[in-house]
């Protein structure tokens, strides 16, 4: 006989204007288990967790905790029932110190009614210690790395005596070592009897940690599986509703002549102990080649791409040669004109224009091509947008649809499509598949491969090693701003890359 579920959600339904976000969802979480929720973007995972944590009220269905029916009207109610959630976008006040965030809204007070900072700091320090987090309770939260900020959220949950911890894609912004630390923390929490509900795209970590897996698709709960009785392949196929081919092994490409050469690139970092963000980086890129850039968070991957694109600080030294000619751009506009394009790492913050429609997002950098008699012609612009939308395979209800209504993968294709209109010779892709679901990733891989075969030189960074190993012809590895390895496709494997990435 199976134990009583700790949390039971029965027939949960949630409707937003125009969307049925959750449709008769069933979920049972057993006490002390690690339960993973898998599903593509838009499957309803986050909405379900919002219902569980009292952020959203369901339109139908029932929620039982310890067998008792609950109707949460806010996160406070959920916290009282022992449910704490760590959202994908962390909910911390950057300007406050760590301990103030841990006790936000539940501040301890001394005899005079003034804040009792000492007791809060002591308890925060204790909690952080159990979480292997070496930051001071007095440090401003905004100065912490994402991984540490997440641990602060977990400390907050622990201080609430949460019995169930809900984590919404916690590792999507973490480096490999931070993810490993989080896994250890989770294992320790589980040993203490905390129930974990974990949302993730990453099959590897799900299969390493989960006891059971529930798959959501299109707002419906498809199935709950025992980890031991299933396989990543089965789970992903349930997620997308069809079998996915393992990212097809890409046949060798034939790179031609050198297009970009970087020599002795150094980017200073004034006021930092290390003194540099990038030190003495040299590499070259050929047409028809994908150069992978591996490295942990803070290794300088983004800074490298930004320096080439003139989007970062101007104080770099060394040389960048494009088509054999030395270049030093002072603004991204010059880099674009010279034939360089960059897809930035944070799509929402740096890539998209939420108020412009799909077409306008695509044509933005090449609008001059849609001018007729000095004014933008609607027909010409639609025609201009149609090309890249087709080439990148964007699925959209129309050229004039809201860009925010598209899935992450389609949004990213729009950003790539924007650059296809500027006829680039070099395409810089900074972690282009972050936060994109499995099916769309495979499509993006295909797109990148095709563009490369058409003669583009591509530099690709990724926080996921398998992605680099699938796509890249060569991989350079950065560690703390230095280039520590340059590996050919045959030499590269996860072990070697990780060794180079952690080389001090």
């Amino acid at each position, binding site marked *: 006989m199976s134990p009583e579920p700790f949390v039971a959600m029965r027939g949960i339904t949630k409707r937003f204007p125009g969307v049925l976000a959750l449709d008769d969802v069933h979920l049972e979480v057993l006490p002390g288990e690690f339960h993973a929720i898998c599903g593509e973007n838009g499957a309803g995972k986050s909405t379900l967790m919002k219902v569980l944590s009292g952020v959203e009220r369901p339109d139908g269905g029932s929620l039982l905790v310890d067998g008792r029916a609950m109707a949460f009207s806010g996160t406070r109610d959920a916290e009282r029932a022992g449910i704490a959630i760590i959202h994908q976008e962390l909910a911390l006040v950057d300007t406050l110190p760590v301990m103030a965030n841990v006790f936000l809204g539940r501040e301890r007070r001394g005899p005079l009614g003034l804040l009792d900072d000492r007791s809060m700091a002591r308890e925060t320090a204790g909690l952080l210690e159990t979480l292997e987090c070496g930051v001071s309770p007095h440090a401003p939260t905004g100065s912490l790395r994402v991984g540490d900020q997440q641990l602060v959220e977990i400390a907050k949950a622990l201080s609430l005596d949460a019995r169930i911890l809900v984590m919404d894609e916690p590792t999507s912004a973490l480096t490999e070592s931070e993810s490993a630390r989080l896994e250890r923390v989770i294992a320790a929490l589980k040993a203490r009897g905390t129930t974990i509900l974990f949302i993730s795209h990453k099959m590897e970590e799900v299969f390493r940690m989960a006891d059971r897996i529930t798959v959501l698709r299109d707002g419906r709960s498809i199935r709950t599986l025992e980890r031991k009785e299933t396989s990543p392949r089965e789970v992903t196929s349930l997620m997308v509703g069809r079998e996915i081919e393992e990212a097809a092994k890409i046949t060798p490409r034939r790179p031609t002549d050198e297009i970009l050469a970087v020599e002795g690139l150094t980017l200073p970092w004034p006021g930092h102990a290390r003194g540099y963000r990038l030190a003495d980086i040299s590499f070259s890129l050929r047409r028809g080649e994908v150069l992978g850039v591996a490295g942990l968070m803070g290794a300088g991957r983004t800074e490298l791409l930004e320096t080439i694109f003139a989007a970062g600080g101007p104080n770099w030294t060394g040389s960048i040669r494009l088509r054999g000619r030395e270049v030093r751009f002072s603004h991204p506009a010059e880099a674009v004109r010279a034939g360089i394009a960059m897809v930035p790492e944070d799509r929402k913050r740096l890539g*998209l224009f939420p108020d412009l429609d799909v077409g306008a997002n695509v044509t933005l950098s090449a609008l001059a091509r849609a001018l007729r008699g000095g004014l933008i012609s609607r027909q010409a612009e639609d025609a201009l947008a149609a090309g890249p939308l087709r080439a990148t395979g964007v699925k959209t209800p129309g050229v004039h649809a809201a860009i925010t209504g598209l899935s992450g993968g389609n949004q990213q294709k729009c950003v790539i499509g924007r650059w296809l209109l500027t006829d680039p010779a070099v395409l810089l892709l900074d972690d282009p598949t972050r936060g994109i679901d499995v099916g769309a990733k495979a499509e993006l891989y295909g797109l990148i491969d095709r563009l490369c075969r058409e003669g583009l030189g591509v530099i690709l960074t990724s926080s996921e090693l398998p992605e680099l190993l699938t796509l890249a012809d060569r991989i350079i590895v950065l560690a703390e701003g230095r280039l520590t390895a340059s590996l050919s496709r045959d030499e590269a494997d996860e072990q070697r890359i990780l060794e180079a990435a952690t080389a001090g």
Partner: protein
Amino acid sequence: MARERSGRWPIHWTGEWTLLVAILLVVAITAVVDGNHSYVDRPLESLRDIARNTALLGIFALGAAVVIIAGGIDLSLGSMIALSGTISATTMLALAPAEVMAFKPVGGLVVAAAIAASLLSGLAVGSLHAWLVTAVRLPPFIATLATLVGLRSLARALCESTTGAMTPTKSAIVNVADPFFKMIRDNVWIPVAVFAVLAVITWIMLTRTVLGRHLQALGGNEEAARLAGIRTENVKWFAYCFSATTAAVAGIFYVANESVAAPVNQGRGHELNAIAAAVVGGCSLTGGVGTVPGTVLGTIFLRVVIDAVSKIIKTGADVYEGLIVGVVVVIAVTFSQAGREAAAGRGLLPGGLGLCMVPILAVFIGGTVAMTTGGLAGLAMGLVTAAALAGIRLWQSRRGVGA
């Protein structure tokens, strides 16, 4: 679940239609309620008043809107109006002191020089704003707050030193009696035509030019705009110059209208009316969103309401203008957000604050009615408001909304 944005375009359209309907409704109500029947008996005169006021406000409301759409804010427009007016008047005084003092025509060339100097001052102030924002890296709010205070003072200093040098006595005003300015004052169609032409140009600029698209992109996501290869500093430069220049144009009209350049008071506080018109017309203060038709309708709505209230309660429009603008902005923006707020399940009068707002709103509304209509009516209105709000509050807590 793109619910937060997906509803944008219908709201957009309904917003403009709603404004149009609201304008007609306000005019109709005024025509019926106004005891003097001025809309019915003297339609042309009323129309002329509203048209002049709308055109004057609308000219620089377009400037305010462009900066807001570009993600900035220009708080200095009122002071820019004063500076521009003063520059045109002092230019005439400097070039033709005898004629200005004798209230005689100064000649076409001098008028042209005065207008050119005004417009140039707009470009100069706009460039100053752009420099403060992009190079000195001040937030637009601070940069234009500084010039809001500074430019008016500068205008007054300019007025006093020019009058000190050119006339027997220093003065904080310069009278302007040139026939060109009189002609502008007496022909309402001139400011209206300038407003209409400017609106059409701005509309085409925003919807059909690369620059307009870049303005929207800049306001929607500045960093992404830079990474898309847009020279964001130049786009801002244009936006602030456009805004200051519209205020410079308006400054010339104010001088013409009042036959005087008076830097101490001319245009004072008008920047907020312009921002209000843009916001009522659908511009989002977070940038990236807004249209010219919306801004034009917002301006008309604001002026029509101000005119209606002054007609109905028969006091000078200026007494209640600020109150009206404030209330209109709150109501207009509340309505455009109503859908979102209801979805969030928040009531209008939540918690302790909601409880406190019942008597506070009752006193505000009752007091206003008491001052405009009479003590007894005010008392009654206050009580009715209190009862209605208390009812809403009770209904809310029954439904379990809020808290």
